[in-house]
């Protein structure tokens, strides 16, 4: 096979044999776990247990793999996206414009030296916090006493329009740029690097998951999750068992999706 044919073959077969996480595997639907009365907007793994935020009921739940409630934390306002960092489960509260975390059975406040308006998500990475400041159309980065902001209201590269989720992976910051219908990638100095999903027909980018070389975006209005490789090539579209998904999280070979309208969680696994 000549080099030219090899390149052409690779280009044609890549979408078929690649997945978000491990080439050449693909995500396959495993099961859907019904949670009647729970409208999960975000999920996080902790070993075999699952953390779920249920803003409609003002609570965060810790569940086992079968959906049994292990612990319930209530009266939390409107808890939105979750982020696990070591033993802490971080969350943002839309109503009180605050960031808090759960650790050892107690809820703790996180001082934030910025004026927030409806924080939709927080991502904690060691001492660094990234906050999706929904109505200010920006990301707030806090590290110790240092505060920086990324983005401004708009539709171009570097602009944001109602950001709903944020994650950091490999020194890159990924934003679910909800009503720009895309994912945007920044470096930690605040430079906008690229846009993912601009041609993917995303209607509302509600949540993201990011890892080494892959990005998952929840396209809630289309009831699907789109897998991209790092440069933005669309690798796989997941739709089985999804009902208005708003968040995704990956642990090893397992992928978990929060179905806000479906009152359920959907599990995928690598095959």
């Amino acid at each position, binding site marked *: 096979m000549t080099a030219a044919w090899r390149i052409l073959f690779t280009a044609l077969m890549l979408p078929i044999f690649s997945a978000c996480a491990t080439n050449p595997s693909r995500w396959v639907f495993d099961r859907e776990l019904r949670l009647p*009365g729970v*409208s999960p*907007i975000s999920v996080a793994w902790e070993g075999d247990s699952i953390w779920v935020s249920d*803003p*409609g*009921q*003002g609570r965060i739940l810790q569940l086992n793999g079968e959906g049994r409630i292990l612990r319930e934390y*209530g*009266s939390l*306002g*409107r808890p*939105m996206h979750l982020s696990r960092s070591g033993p802490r489960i971080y969350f943002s509260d*839309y*109503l*009180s*414009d605050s960031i808090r975390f759960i650790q050892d059975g107690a809820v703790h406040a996180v001082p934030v030296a910025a004026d927030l308006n*409806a924080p*939709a998500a927080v991502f904690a990475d060691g001492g660094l916090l990234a906050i999706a400041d*929904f*109505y200010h159309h920006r990301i707030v980065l806090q590290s110790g006493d240092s505060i920086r902001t990324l983005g401004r209201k708009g539709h171009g590269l570097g602009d944001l329009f*109602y950001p*709903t989720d944020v994650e950091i992976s490999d020194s890159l910051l990924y934003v679910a740029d*909800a*009503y720009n219908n895309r994912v945007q990638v920044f470096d930690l100095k605040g430079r906008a690097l690229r846009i993912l999903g601009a041609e993917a027909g995303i209607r*509302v980018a*509600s949540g993201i998951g990011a890892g080494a070389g892959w990005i998952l975006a929840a396209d*809630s*209005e289309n009831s699907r999750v789109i897998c991209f490789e790092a440069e933005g090539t669309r690798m796989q579209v997941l739709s089985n068992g999804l009902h*208005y998904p*708003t968040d995704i999280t990956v642990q090893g070979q397992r992928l978990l999706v929060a179905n*806000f*309208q479906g009152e359920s969680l959907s599990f995928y696994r690598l095959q």
Partner: protein
Amino acid sequence: MIGFKVLKTGTAVCALALGVFAGEMDTAQDSSRQAAARDSGAPEQDTSRKYFRVRVNGLACPFCAYGLEKNLLELPGIMGLHIDLKGGFATFHVPSNRTPEAGKIKKIVEDAGFSLAGLDHSDKPFPADRKQ
């Protein structure tokens, strides 16, 4: 200004803590004067209320819907706020002497990222209000 905001947010959070909502987005606010009157057994001084139903386009998005809730809670005297994501509307009531202007409600809806599909008001509760 910050203190004012925290006070109002605290009111909302307390209302949530009382478990006023069930399954969907319900929030209730009550003035301390009314609560005090009720506790003492004295009749509330102002029982006349104006009921509102705000119909908006695209309310299914929870990030926007909870944002609308947050912004509506800024209305003076608002009580019994209920947001129906599936129905695409919000209902609430206010004392008659604190009735907000339609333009103010429209601005709140637009600031929350929606367009206003319709605004109804009545002297009687709308269906979603009756459980309040």
